[in-house]
């Protein structure tokens, strides 16, 4: 029998990036907030300190910072006709767990989406005609515009201290920045990180072809920075252990380094870790949430009543929370009806390896998670897609984040997969190879979705999430097109051999690509095609807000975190200035 606790104003499920920011703002506004985090409490000291934190076997291979999939797996299949099986080892994507969430192990790549992305369906129709796309593609507008989000992007970047170079300030193109970006109100809070050698080689080659290289916006900071919350970060030391690792230097912007010290000092906030939320509870009308039920680390069941529930877990877990709670109609791919789990999308990642002679020394280990150089000339809708048969694009960049010994050993095709020949090739090429990433968009498609698995259950007896996904033909075409452009840049660098690997289907869950899972609780203006309205409020249960990359109707070219930060502040603005003053629907259905 659940023990019923004293009611609070707000319960936040998941104390990661979104949860920390929302909780901080609402607690500061005077509301009693409880944050429920399934993982452990952890801080830069002592949990993230080296040498333990640089254990490649533990963190890279065994995924020590990730969701415990022995207790809480997901299942996966490519198509609806297959039987999904549990993912027992995280490979394709890496959802984190614990205080600070997945952001603790991110790379710090902090992009904005472009104005076109937020009105993708409308703009595509306008520019290319209404029959341009495969009829299975289900892209749609977001219900917010870039202009709506600009102040919130700005606020998020200043919270993080992001290091970068503006390309467009209030419509004026800035030399050295990205000329394709949508206008920003001011420059980044800190200057770009130092360019590594691979980046410099890329910049020269891309520039020689008439493209527009610029430094990667990085939340591993170029210099010490005190954010508007009064929290100070240090400069990055280019140790090469960002992604999959926590930062020991207070140099990567994560909840622990940008906002938790302020949140945890507020007596209006209470953090409870080791708490596995089972569901959001609804009253008999099913239109009002009464709180949540969770199980703590020793198995006790609690009911935490609250006036407002915010689910701010990792994208796929937000979907599952709604499905387990019976909030919103589950999506049915056969009929196309229902919304929860619909428009699950990903990111379409391709690579190009440029092999040089041994006189070109690149020192790949000297990197941060975001110290590269890239171009947006083939990103989003920055080029004419007429006649190409696809929409979307990819940024191309020398954005390699590390040269760690177990995982990083580029070798040319034809190299033996093991043994002496392989070892010799690794030694030969390790320090003389430049890697490009083609980081591509992902359209949503009718057949791709998430629902509850009919067979497998988690350690608490609840159905796990089932992902059904394969790469849409649109994105395979896009990957082929953009990767060919990237190969040309590799050749312009003067590489001896350039090997492009455009992403091809079928999607495999057993190879790392990226942790940019999106969709499933998408935002929009129409309750028939979205789970939450433009303020991220549930259409069905107005005192539930869902905030995550699960809100994206499809995924754009860039890493999703910057946009999620902007959406978070956008939703907070609506919560503080609209909803909490007068609780109820913010948009009439």
């Amino acid at each position, binding site marked *: 029998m659940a023990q019923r606790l004293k009611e609070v104003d707000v319960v936040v499920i998941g104390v990661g990036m979104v949860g920390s920011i929302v909780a901080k703002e609402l607690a500061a506004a005077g509301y009693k907030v409880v944050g429920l985090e399934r993982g452990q409490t952890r*801080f*830069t*000291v*002592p949990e993230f*300190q*080296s*040498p333990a934190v640089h254990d490649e076997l533990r963190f890279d291979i065994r995924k020590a910072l990730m969701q415990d999939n022995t207790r809480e797996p997901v299942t996966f299949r490519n198509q609806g006709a297959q039987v999904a099986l549990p993912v027992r080892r995280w490979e394709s994507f890496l959802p984190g767990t614990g205080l600070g969430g997945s952001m603790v192990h991110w790379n710090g790549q902090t992009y904005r989406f472009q104005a076109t992305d937020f009105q993708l369906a409308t703009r595509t129709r306008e520019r290319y005609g209404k029959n341009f796309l495969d009829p299975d593609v289900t892209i749609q507008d977001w219900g917010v515009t870039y202009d709506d989000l600009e102040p919130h992007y700005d606020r998020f970047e200043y919270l993080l201290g992001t290091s970068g170079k503006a390309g467009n300030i209030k419509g004026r193109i800035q030399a050295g920045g990205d000329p394709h970006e949508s206008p920003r109100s001011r420059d980044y809070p800190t200057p770009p990180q130092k360019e590594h050698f691979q980046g410099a080689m890329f910049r020269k080659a891309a520039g020689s072809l008439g493209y527009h290289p610029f430094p990667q916006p990085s939340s591993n900071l*170029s*210099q*010490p920075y005190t954010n508007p919350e009064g929290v*100070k970060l*240090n*400069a*990055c*030391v280019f140790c090469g252990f960002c992604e999959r690792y926590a930062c*020991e*230097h*207070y140099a990567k912007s994560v909840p622990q380094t940008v906002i938790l*010290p302020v949140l945890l000092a507020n007596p209006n906030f209470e953090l409870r870790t080791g708490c596995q939320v089972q569901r959001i509870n609804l009253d008999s009308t099913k239109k009002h949430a009464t709180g949540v039920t969770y199980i703590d680390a020793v198995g006790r069941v609690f009911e935490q009543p609250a006036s407002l529930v915010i689910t701010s877990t990792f994208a796929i877990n937000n979907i599952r929370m709604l499905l387990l709670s019976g909030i919103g109609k589950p999506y049915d791919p056969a009929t196309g009806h229902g919304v929860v789990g619909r428009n699950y999308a990903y990111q379409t990642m391709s690579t190009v390896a440029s092999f040089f002679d041994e006189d070109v020394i690149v020192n790949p280990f000297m990197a941060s998670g975001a110290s590269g150089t890239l171009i947006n000339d083939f990103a989003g809708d920055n080029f004419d897609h007429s006649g190409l048969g696809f929409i979307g694009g990819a940024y191309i960049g020398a954005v390699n984040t590390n040269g760690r010994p177990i995982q990083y050993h580029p070798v040319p095709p034809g190299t033996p997969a093991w043994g002496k020949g392989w070892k010799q090739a690794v030694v030969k090429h390790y320090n003389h190879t430049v890697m490009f990433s083609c980081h591509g968009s992902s359209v949503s498609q009718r057949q791709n979705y998430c629902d509850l698995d009919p067979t497998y259950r988690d350690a608490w007896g609840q159905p796990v999430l089932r992902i059904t996904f394969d790469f849409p033909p649109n994105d395979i075409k896009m990957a082929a097109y953009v990767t060919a452009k990237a190969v040309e840049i590799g050749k312009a660098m003067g590489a001896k051999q350039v090997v492009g690997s455009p992403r091809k289907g079928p999607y495999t869950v057993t190879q790392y690509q990226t942790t940019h899972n999106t969709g499933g609780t998408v935002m929009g203006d129409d309750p028939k095609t979205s789970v939450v309205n433009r303020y991220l409020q549930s259409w069905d249960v107005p005192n539930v807000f869902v905030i995550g990359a699960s809100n994206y109707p499809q995924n754009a070219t860039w890493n999703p975190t910057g946009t999620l930060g902007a959406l978070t502040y956008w939703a907070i603005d609506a919560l503080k200035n609209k909803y909490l003053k007068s609780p109820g629907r913010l948009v009439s259905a």
Partner: protein
Amino acid sequence: MNAPAPPFARFAFSFLLIAALPCALAASATPAGAATPAAAAAAAAPPCEACHGAHGEGMAAAHVPRIAGQSADYLKKQLDDYAAGTRDNPIMANFAKALSQQQRAKFAARYAAMSARYIPQVKPPIAVHLARGHQLAFQGDEAKRVQACNACHGPDGVGVPHAAPYLAGQSAEFLASALKAFKDGTRKNDAGELMRSVAERLDDADIAAVTGYFASVDLSTH
């Protein structure tokens, strides 16, 4: 980790020249006497050892660091920075300015190749300070938002050539004066203000504890 000490006699230095240099260089006076830094450099003799010792062991009481076995890149950078003024010490600035780039590289390489025996502290820290120093070295302090020294300076402060100098076995007095110089901004030759960011969060007790700890580490037992 240190290379064996090269034979003392290998270096053609002038004993007289060295003897003419003032010993108490830590008292920030300009070197006086017949031997100007330029003359010392011209003679290609190591003027360093009057203070840094014949084996680079330093002079703890006078806040002169041990430099034996410190990486050549690090030592060379310090000489460059003394000359440029980003590391503030009038005595070292005089020497460094008088040396050519080649000479700086040569001295740096010479001391990088040396090893010197561990010199125990005259007044070792008490257990409670050692414990606090050990904590800062290995773990850091979340309340002060200070990461472990070892994160950059290597396991137990053995140094990470070429980026970070060793702290183990270094004189506590010197380490304390270095931290204070980073803290008050008179030393600003750290990339990205990495050391200033740490030093400004340490109080005097922390500085005494952590420098006492590192001075107590005998590298020859590693």
